[in-house]
């Protein structure tokens, strides 16, 4: 939280800032730091790929995926920042809201059950995808309301238990046979039970581009001009130079990641504006001291519920953007570990800071989430895809004979499990060493104009400075 023990008499962060200028780049400036971080991450991935001689297509896929994950985790951390960083609401049921968003979107937008669908599969209401997305966000917000009503009167740790229980209730409901399929008003719809839901509402990217194309369509008199002419006609064609065979999936990857980065930008602006609005100032004062805010005549419960619902709707949207392109969803995807990912991302960046949230999302995506998997690919390619022992026992056996190599292969092979172990250790380390994350330690002036003495370097004032 931002009001950590500031030493009395310290003026801005001048000392820190002097140290922060490295190689002519001023790291005291948040956006410089963020840009340097992003450039560095992509450079590492590119160099890693070039060193092992990854084919151009594979390399581009990796970069596209990395952008996707950075956008997803940065968005999630921003939404969580609204809950925890701004309002102090301890939500550890994030995954439940994501699942609600994507499932409701699926139910609303899947094509109507008909002759073409297999008997085991359920249909949907066949609404346009954008309507479905709005519905999904609304459903997530309503679920947030249900969670918030009983829990907001309670201590933070109770809210934590209620939200995580709720996210598990959502998962059980998605798994249950009772809700897997039924007839509502002549439509055969349902949540699909353990088999999950096939998201056959068309390619979201195409829908987004065609929607963006509406003004152009009016000018050019052709439906989906931006998609047909610009996207397929120009961009995909241009890429077919370096990637001759089937370039579209690679371009799709990039284009979708680009869409997500645009949404991320929207999130950033939205959350920052919420934060600096009168509404946001009340949220921050609730975080610092709810009783005082109450005493000042603000109905804190209403503010908390609003903040919680907005955050939940955003989480629903992230769920849709994240899982909605994967063709199908199954309930057991939505285990609490996804919530855990997002918390780590937020804590790395620093709760309370939006730039920090984005940075935390990027660092988490690049080094903790995608990094180990990429590393595994790189090493396996270098070693020529060796076969790893199938169990811990078989990996342990050769160690007694002094051969550690099978163990290393087994470690590499189970990197998806070990990376969660690693994340747990990182979280513990962070809570010990940097509980405020990268940017969470800043003080925010309660006043909207800087109260510090005007310094030569104007950055000092905008970064915060003292309360008084």
């Amino acid at each position: 939280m931002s009001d950590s023990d500031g030493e009395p008499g310290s003026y801005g962060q001048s000392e820190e800032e002097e140290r922060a200028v490295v190689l002519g780049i001023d790291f005291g400036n948040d956006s410089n730091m963020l840009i340097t971080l992003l450039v560095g991450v992509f450079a590492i991935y590119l160099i890693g790929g070039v060193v092992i001689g990854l084919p151009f297509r594979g390399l581009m896929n990796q970069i596209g995926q990395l952008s996707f994950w950075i956008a997803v985790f940065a968005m999630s951390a921003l939404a969580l920042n609204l809950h925890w960083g701004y309002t102090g609401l301890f939500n550890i049921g994030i995954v439940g809201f994501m699942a609600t968003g994507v499932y409701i979107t699926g139910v609303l937008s899947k094509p109507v059950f008909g002759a073409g669908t297999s008997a085991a599969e359920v249909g949907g209401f066949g609404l346009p995808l954008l309507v479905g997305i709005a519905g999904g966000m609304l459903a997530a917000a309503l679920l947030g309301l249900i969670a918030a009503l009983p829990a907001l009167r309670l201590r933070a740790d109770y809210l934590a238990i209620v939200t995580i229980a709720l996210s598990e209730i959502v998962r059980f409901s998605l798994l249950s046979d009772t809700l897997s399929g039924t007839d509502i008003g002549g439509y055969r719809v349902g949540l699909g039970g353990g088999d999950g839901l096939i998201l056959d509402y068309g390619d979201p990217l195409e829908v987004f581009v065609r929607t963006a194309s509406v003004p152009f369509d009016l000018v050019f008199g052709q439906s989906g001009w931006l998609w047909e002419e610009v996207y397929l006609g120009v961009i995909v064609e241009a890429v077919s130079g370096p990637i001759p065979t089937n370039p579209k999936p690679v371009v799709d990857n990039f284009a979708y990641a680009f869409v997500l980065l645009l949404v991320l930008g929207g999130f950033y602006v939205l959350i920052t504006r919420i934060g600096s609005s009168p509404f946001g100032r009340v949220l921050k004062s609730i975080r610092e001291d709810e009783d005082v805010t109450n005493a000042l005549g603000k109905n804190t419960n209403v503010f908390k519920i609003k903040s919680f619902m907005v955050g939940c709707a955003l989480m629903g949207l992230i769920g849709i953007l994240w899982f909605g392109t994967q063709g199908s969803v199954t309930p057991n995807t939505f285990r609490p570990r996804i919530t855990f990912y997002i918390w780590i991302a937020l804590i790395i960046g620093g709760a309370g800071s939006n730039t920090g949230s984005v940075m935390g999302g990027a660092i988490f995506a690049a080094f903790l989430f995608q990094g180990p998997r990429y590393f595994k690919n790189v090493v396996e390619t270098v070693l020529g895809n060796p076969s790893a022992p199938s169990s811990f026992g078989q990996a342990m056996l050769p160690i007694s004979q002094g051969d550690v190599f099978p163990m290393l292969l087994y470690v590499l092979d189970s990197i998806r499990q070990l990376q969660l172990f690693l994340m747990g250790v990182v979280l513990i380390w962070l809570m010990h060493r940097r509980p405020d994350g990268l940017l969470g330690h800043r003080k925010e002036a309660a006043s909207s104009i800087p109260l510090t003495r005007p310094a030569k370097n104007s950055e000092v004032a905008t970064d915060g400075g003292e309360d008084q």
Partner: protein
Amino acid sequence: MTAALVFIGVVLLLDLLRQLLTGDLAISGMLGLIKDGLMRGLVIGLAGIGLSMTYSILNFANFAHGDYITAGAFSGWSVTYLIAGGFGADANIGSLALVGAGGSVFGGALGINVVNTPLAVLAGLVVAGVLTIGLALFTDRFIFKPIRDSGGIPLLITSIGVAFALRYLILFMFDSDTRGTTAAGSVPGIRPLVLDGTVPLTLHDGFLVLVAGGLMLGVHFLLQRTKLGKAMRAMSDDESLARITGIPTERVIRSTWIIGGGLTGVAGYMFVLWKGTLSWNDGWLLLLLIFAAVILGGIGSVYGAILGGLVIGLTASTAVIWIPSGFARAAAFVVMILVLVVRPQGLFSGRSTA
């Protein structure tokens, strides 16, 4: 609110009566569910005592508690497999130590149950308790203690980190298979006839009642008759005051972890012995039910945890009388949320550790 809850309760009872009268639900079937719920409740209560004590004395919700259960279960069963398998006489010693990872050894093939292999079971029980005590003390010393003063929420977040690190380390070592640990069907038992059918009672049910009941009684005497119990109660009331009056708070905290950890490990082992399967996710799935029990009983109250455990166990088991079985666990969570709304201080509020 309370009136609405009473109304729902009456409706459910009437529906139960209807189901019994129309024969939709056999009386023996209902008794079977109740027995099942009580057994589950004993496990939840036993594991809940530790969570409740640390929650009230150290003032944070320990999300790693569920994975202490898993760790206890795996360590204990590793020893049980080793002894029952004759230290490699019946099967590869490595497979035995890894509790049959990858389907290499099956508990059924080793004929594990409390009558066939009493020594293996007892040794496993003890090891599960001891190892979990070690684990709890280790995490407290190196992970929780250094940041104990930073408040409940940072500790809670840290404990989530511990939980994931532990869970996935266990998954890494023991793999993700759910294994059968006891020879299903070969556990000696009786099937007494009750009115319209039989209610199966096995020796493992009895053993669970014996172990859990014995340990709960032990905790009761410990808290009521010893200085340690008094010190614990004093500490959960007011730590600073306790320290001023000369209570060695650090030693009391260590004792709390020892008692809580030991009970938790034993609960994990007994749960696996009773239900006959073992999986890396068991502890996590149990954890939320334990939280429900502890909150229901009132945080800090040992008797509350036991009673809450029984109520939550019964809810999770008997909920299938009224709702589809997929929602049984959800029903227990709903009960917890209702308790938080109606009586957030729990049933045994204000009577910390007593």
